[in-house]
């Protein structure tokens, strides 16, 4: 088993939580992993990315080489495009359709969506709306994780266990909302895969 995953978004969108959950599940499965993160100044509304590498053999580099990511998970549509040079030819993009506009020259969102659709394997989901239906817009990152989960190489059960572990400190209500969001995202991708 080997999967290189890029997780992208804007500082504060919960990128590190997505990475941490996949990481937790991978460690439970005794996989080798390396997961590089962005801390510090860029977290203030700048673009952030995490490179997550999973394998049943030891992982060397903390960074993914160009053209080798099997999956790009993005909580923001423009950020999904930023990392295309890392995408493998058969790789998947799973992204939120809802833009995070904090710069004055943010491009036309329809143009962004068109560019994403040009990629062979892409899933675009309005994660903010789905999350709101699940109880909190803040769980949008879990909707995206759920939607991306079929392409991670890790079983949904393992990922759900990690979601519970991740949020348990914050009380049962928060755990339930995030689990619901994860499942809603997963369902979206599964039904979409069948329909295409």
């Amino acid at each position, binding site marked *: 088993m080997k999967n290189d995953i890029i997780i992208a978004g804007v500082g504060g969108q919960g990128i590190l939580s997505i990475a941490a959950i996949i990481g937790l599940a991978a460690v439970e499965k005794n996989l080798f992993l390396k997961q590089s993160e962005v801390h510090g100044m860029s977290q203030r509304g700048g673009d952030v990315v995490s490179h997550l590498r999973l394998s049943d053999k030891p992982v060397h580099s*903390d960074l993914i*080489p160009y053209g080798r990511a099997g999956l790009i998970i993005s909580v923001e549509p423009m950020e999904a495009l930023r990392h295309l040079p890392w995408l493998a030819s058969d790789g998947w993009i799973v992204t939120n359709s809802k833009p995070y506009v904090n710069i004055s020259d943010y491009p036309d969102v329809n143009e962004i969506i068109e560019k994403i659709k040009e990629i062979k394997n892409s899933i675009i989901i309005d994660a903010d709306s789905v999350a709101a239906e699940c109880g909190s817009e803040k769980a949008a990152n879990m909707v995206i994780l759920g939607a991306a989960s079929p392409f991670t190489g890790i079983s949904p059960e393992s990922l759900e266990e990690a979601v519970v572990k991740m949020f348990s400190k914050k009380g049962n209500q928060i755990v339930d909302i995030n689990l619901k969001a994860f499942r809603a995202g997963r369902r979206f991708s599964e039904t979409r895969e069948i329909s295409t």
Partner: protein
Amino acid sequence: MQKLLLLGDEAIAQGAIDAGISGMYAYPGTPSTEIMEYVQSSPEAKSGRIECRWSSNEKTAMESALGMSFCGKRAMVAMKHVGLNVAADAFINSAITGVNGGLIVVAADDPSMHSSQNEQDSRFYGKFAYVPVFEPRNQQEAYNMIFDAFELSEKYSTPVLLRIPTRLAHSRSGVERGEQIPEKKFNLPDDTKRFILMPLIARKRFKVLLDNYEKLQFDYRLGKYNTFRDGPDRTLGIIACGIAVNYLMENFIDDSLPYPLLSIATYPFSRDVIKDITGRCREILVLEEGYPLVEEQLRGILNEGRKVYGKLDGTIPRDGELNPDIVAAALGIEIKKGPPMPGIVRSRPPSFCKGCGHADMFNAIVEAIKPYGIQGVFSDIGCYTLAALPPYSCINSCVDMGASVTMAVGAADAGLFPSIAVIGDSTFTHSGMPGLLDAVVKNSPVTIIIADNLTTGMTGGQESNATGRLQGICTGIGVAPEHVRTIVPLPKNHEENVRILREEFEYRGPSVIIASRECIQAGARRRKSERIEKQKNQEE
């Protein structure tokens, strides 16, 4: 044993906890901050076994650690690379005094300047101070090295430098823990004279240091980390330092590297180690994260010997961090990039958080300085440096911790009026206070604006030693009490704040304006934890 999923920083912290430290000292700085944070959240810290409050700056941290070591106990001190400049006086002289309890200094370098003003390579500090350096290649090795580093420190009575780059500091991997060692007993040094660096003693101590440094290259605790593996293709030999070896091996999956390889992770290393590879290969490629330290040594000044590829001949870029693709290009390996990034993608620099008090403060500053026709103010290291970007574009400088205050003093000396500094609360107590004393002594017409968000904000909201003490510090240093003003940077106070700023600009002596409002991130975290606590209590 179940592996822990740890950042490089956290692996170092866990290593130090398990190696029995009694004291951890640090000032926050990306990418080193998480070392101290991890120690602080450990059960060993909560039970009071490990002393681990934030220090006011890296120098005070280094000196406190040396004091802990003086008493026979193990101590660690952590900082970002530029923090070692601040601590350099103490660091370099601690090599001459030597240590008693083991002492490790962690410097986290930031090649590519993800969150820094330069990309200096801390390995040079090791060479400069004649201190051994460990440069771990991965998280597990970072953990393991701590034990050897403490042993080495105690055997040779030397501080030890542990150098990591951002990419290791901020990358997680599985780490297996070893046995925990009990902390050392309180035990004063037999010879306390060696800590008195009067010339008479320092001259003797320096000879001891030089002698020890020669011996170090043959010590197994260092030597075992420098590994050689032969290869069938001797047209090229590769020397890789620290994490660079990972980027190399990434290009040769399943151990298919055909070239002889020397992987270096400790310094000083012996000439014999280098001969393993130079004896086999005429041409050498050097891969190192940071400056060309080993490459320069290998070339020598005349560069008349063998062909050496690396940063000095352009095979590898001189600046920025390494990655697998740079190493692939250096070896002529084809890179299969994915689709190009579309032209519509815009850069997204960091910006003030929505509702940040700094933004309201700069709105007032921009308006207050308008009539004077000056471009901006001297600034410092912190979130408020973001005022360099539009729509504010109103700072002239960001150089080093505390420089805003003293640059304003020098500029006032040269005739700049008004001469204004903006400095964060934590940055002020880090290195701004002595500069304010300079201003007081010469009655310099400067206005120092302290952006007080009640936390060390940019590094994620650590406790600030300035909180609640600024008024007392400034009047204590000698600023006239009526010229230490406090404002609350909120839109509703804008007019009043502009007026107060101008009043103090007009005062022809040193004045301080404390612009005080809690960081909105820190406030949100505080309220959230209070809410969770309350909810938990209700559920129980």
